[in-house]
């Protein structure tokens, strides 16, 4: 099993722990990943509001190059995953957009085929590797660690390609296979505000506060995320968001939790990059970790 790997800008910066744990986990499961050579920024939501057509062209460059490798393209960052898929759909549904993108790719001598399949690591773990294979490799089960699974918006809306749109359970099932207890979390797909915390701080904080309050109300000990920006939002502002309730949750990527279960040493899975350490909770729940 081999995939082209598209990290996206965040995974090289604030989302480093995601990349580290992702690479470690897939290596341990025997899946080969090759970083897409000379990938460029997909544009995410910001470029899309600046110039829509240029945004599609930027995404298309990556898709075209991925097509040349012949492998499916794995995009762990939720925003990149959405933009790449969106580009494929819009190019197909609006021929004039397809024309512009094709011309742009021609101008830099890249093939115009942008049909490479864009996959999310959750999709690959569940459908290609399989829960049984993963369960078999779990050496340090998570002993009923209470996890709130936070999916955020972009991997289920508007395209729910591998999971139920309103009540996704792929991450739930994965974490349960690792021995964790997934708590009831009705806000699992509610928006965290994205970049609004930076641009409109009060409003961004309110959204973050709701998510943290619900996690606490349902007894979560850890929050699991799939998106670097969600992870940052939920982790970095817990003190600011605390009012009557003190929030202090470790917010981890699902790949990090999977890494613990697979016995990968914490420092190889980016745990040193967390602001709120999860080690006290792991010790309390008697979860062995490397």
């Amino acid at each position, binding site marked *: 099993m081999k995939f082209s790997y598209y990290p996206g*800008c965040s995974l*090289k*910066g*604030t*989302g*480093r*722990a995601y990349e580290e744990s992702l690479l470690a986990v897939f290596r341990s499961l025997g899946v080969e990943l090759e970083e897409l050579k*000379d*990938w*460029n*920024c997909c*544009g995410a*939501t*910001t*470029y*899309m*509001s*600046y*110039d*829509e*057509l*240029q945004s599609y*062209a*930027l995404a298309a*460059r990556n898709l075209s190059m991925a097509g040349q490798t012949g492998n499916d393209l794995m995009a762990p960052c939720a925003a990149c995953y959405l933009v790449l898929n969106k580009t494929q759909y*819009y190019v197909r549904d*609006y021929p*004039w*957009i397809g*024309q*512009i*993108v094709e*011309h*742009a*790719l*021609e*101008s*830099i001598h890249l093939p115009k085929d942008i049909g490479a399949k864009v996959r999310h690591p959750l999709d690959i773990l569940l459908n290609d590797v399989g829960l049984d294979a993963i369960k078999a490799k779990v050496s340090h089960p998570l002993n009923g660690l209470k996890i709130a699974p936070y999916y955020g*918006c*972009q991997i289920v*809306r*508007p395209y729910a390609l591998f999971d139920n*749109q*309103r009540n996704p359970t792929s991450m739930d099932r994965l974490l349960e296979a690792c021995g964790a207890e997934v708590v009831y979390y009705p806000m699992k797909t*509610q*928006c965290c*505000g*994205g*970049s*609004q915390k*930076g*641009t*409109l701080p009060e*409003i961004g904080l309110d*959204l973050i506060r709701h998510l943290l309050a619900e996690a606490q109300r349902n007894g979560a000990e850890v929050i699991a995320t799939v998106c670097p920006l969600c992870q940052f939002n939920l982790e*970095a502002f817990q003190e600011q968001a605390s009012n009557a309730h003190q929030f202090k949750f470790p917010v981890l990527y699902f790949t990090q939790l999977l890494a613990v279960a697979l016995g990968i040493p914490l420092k190889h899975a980016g745990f*040193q*990059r*967390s*602001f709120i350490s999860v080690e006290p909770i792991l010790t309390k729940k008697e979860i062995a970790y490397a």
Partner: protein
Amino acid sequence: MELKRVVKFEAERDPDFARWITQTVGGERIRHCLQCGLCSGSCPLSLYMDYTPRRLMHLSREGFKEEVLSSYTIWLCTCCYACMVECPKKINITHMMYALKTRAMKEGFYPKGFAIPVLAREFSRMIRGSGRITESRLVMRVFLKTAFWRMMGFSKLGMRLMRTGRMRLQREKVQRRGDIVTLLNAVDSTRKELAR
């Protein structure tokens, strides 16, 4: 009591704006909007908006350009797609918000020093120059151009990010940077041609 005329005369409508919104990508079905309010109900940000998404849709299709482009709504939208998923008429609301945002930025409908257009501009500049975003540099540039005194407040968080290795100052870049510029220029030239 400060009174203001709020009645709208037909002459104050902008029919070109109304026509434009129906021609944007995603705006094809705006005339089907029932004004049911499901979009506003599901939007997590609608609690803070001056015009709810539903109202904005109606104002847009009726051509009230001033109100629409000066609203807070288009800036508050995080493009989370919650509205689109449930819309009973399958109207591509999120994409229309993108189009309105782009137009508002182009026509300058925002207060001086407003962070979001600054972010968008700096973002695009960085991509044009390097092909990738270096988060630390982007954040600093936005702060400098907007409310640079907030950098003080950010410094504690910034330290933490640096200590945990999540804030790299080294510039992330693509090797074939010329290609990026060529790519973006090609889009502009084809777009101009098609507009003719």
